[in-house]
């Protein structure tokens, strides 16, 4: 028990709003060990690499969602943004544009969708759930209308290589994920952008009275979320080899589950990218374990929903305990 107490109370987990939940790390270790015993296939390099590849797409989108949730917001439109970004890039390549121009345009589209969310939420004060739910429907609907429901097969080798190529045995998309996380892990504790995300999520009024333009920062946070969603959409298309209007449908569930599981509070002000990364690992290990155990995919959905509920309940209980204390 002493070892467990020392583990849970160690200073290595950090302090305050950016502290990691040691229980989450413990859960990853326990699930990892359990799956190693349950399935002999789990601990093979091929399987672990597959888990990493599956995790990448959700992982990139989860960066922006983490920032939005720490800032006290919410974004349900990331799946639609992913599909729209992939389709725009595919259209542009088909129309003769270069891959760089197509990627820039796709990221720009994601930022525009994020900006629209930001303006609706920050300037018109529409509830983030409603604003981004409406955007989810609008963007997905437009993707179907414009494409007539047809998918575009990607023939550009550079793009496809991103999904299949490797550098020193590590898939490019895993490297991209690591780079995105490293960039934001370096940025957040050292920049006013990072500081204000926590301040706005913790007490937006106090932040405003301290002279922070909460409206502009919120806008920037949603733009960042749109950009990471678009990048995730490009990586998804690279993996699947096509751009479809129905792509990434329901990805929101995985992304939000990972973020909340990682310790970000729905009330804002708390959470870390490292926590989200560990939440992702836990979520995808459980997914993988269920697949290896040949649990039908419909049941996997039920389990995912259950994990999200459990994570939110844990957050509520933790908050309640703090408030009561």
């Amino acid at each position, binding site marked *: 028990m002493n070892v467990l107490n020392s583990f849970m109370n160690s200073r290595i987990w950090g302090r305050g709003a950016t502290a990691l939940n040691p229980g989450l790390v413990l859960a990853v270790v326990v699930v990892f060990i359990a799956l190693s015993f349950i399935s002999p296939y789990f601990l093979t390099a091929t399987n672990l690499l597959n888990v990493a590849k599956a995790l990448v797409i959700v992982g990139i989108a989860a960066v922006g969602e983490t920032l939005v949730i720490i800032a006290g917001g919410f974004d349900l439109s990331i799946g639609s943004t992913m599909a729209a970004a992939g389709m725009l890039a595919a259209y542009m390549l088909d129309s003769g544009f270069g891959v760089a121009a197509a990627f820039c345009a796709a990221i720009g589209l994601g930022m525009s969708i994020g900006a629209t969310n930001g303006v609706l939420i920050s300037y018109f004060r529409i509830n983030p759930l409603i604003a981004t739910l409406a955007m989810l429907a609008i963007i997905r609907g437009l993707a179907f209308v414009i494409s007539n429901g047809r998918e575009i097969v990607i023939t550009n080798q550079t793009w496809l290589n991103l999904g299949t190529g490797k550098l020193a045995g590590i898939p490019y998309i895993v490297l991209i994920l690591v780079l995105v996380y490293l960039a934001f892990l370096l940025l957040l504790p050292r*920049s*006013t952008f990072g500081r204000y995300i*926590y301040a706005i999520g*913790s007490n937006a009024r106090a932040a405003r009275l301290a002279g922070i333009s909460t409206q502009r920062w919120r806008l920037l946070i949603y733009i960042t979320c749109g950009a990471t969603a678009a990048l995730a959409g490009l990586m998804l298309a690279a993996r699947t080899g096509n751009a479809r209007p129905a792509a990434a449908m329901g990805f929101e569930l995985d992304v939000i589950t990972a973020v909340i599981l990682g310790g970000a509070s729905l009330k804002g002000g708390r959470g870390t990218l490292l926590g989200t990364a560990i939440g992702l690992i836990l979520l995808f290990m459980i997914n993988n374990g269920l697949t290896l155990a040949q649990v039908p995919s419909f049941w996997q959905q039920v389990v995912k929903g259950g994990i999200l509920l459990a994570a939110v309940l844990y957050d509520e209980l933790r908050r309640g305990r703090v408030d009561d204390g």
Partner: protein
Amino acid sequence: MPTPQSEMSGHNPGADSGARPPLIELRGITKKFGGYTALDGVDLKIGEAEAVGIIGDNGAGKSTLVKVLSGVHRPSSGTMLFRGQKLTLGSPLDARRNGVEMIYQDLALCEDLDVAQNIFLGRELKKNFGPFRVLDRQAMTEAAANDIADMGLDFDVEREVGQLSGGERQMVAVARALQFDPAALLMDEPTAALSAEKIRKLWEMIGRLKQRGVSILLVSHRFTDILNICDRIVVVRAGRIAGEMMPHELPPAQTMAMMTEMMTGDTVGNGAEA
């Protein structure tokens, strides 16, 4: 009915300072919210190193007045002068840039941030990091620790504000206001959530600030706060200045009776209710 304002006229240090204009002067400030007039032609002067108490009933316009002074509300009409120069405050940041700091009734702290992060919120110290300007966390932590030590307090500035007691939070709000050497400190009901011991400490601190030359504007429901701290008392009623008085020139019972009369508009017999 007596007219206390005329009775006490000529006692305003801000107005009497001759060559030096008052630190802050309001002329005919009116603030309307839709059809409701919260402030109606308010004239007020706050002198350098003067402590002015604002007292009034609920809804009298005290908080609106202090929010106009701190840049939270823009006045609908009227003029604001700072050291004799016309000043327009579009935001709390404008007020801060002019040396006017505000401590809000709810303290306006971010509970998930630590003490140092709250003290420097909106005015973070930065340093060069290659081609970038990044937060200087160490400098902010050290400066915040010095602020807290200077106030005679002892708590870890890397603790989350949400984990502090009510009194400690109050001190964080004071430390934040003092960090940038304000010319004026506005306080809205600063003792509302404090114990008697903490209130005494706050009064001592305000006394030290006055000695340092900081002007104080204190909004409070509590007569004792006002009487203990303030050089001059301004009574607000129905959005107007109902009167002013100098508490140190009158016996406390008479001061309290006059304050009550001005707040309510009714005569208080012999000052007994005070």
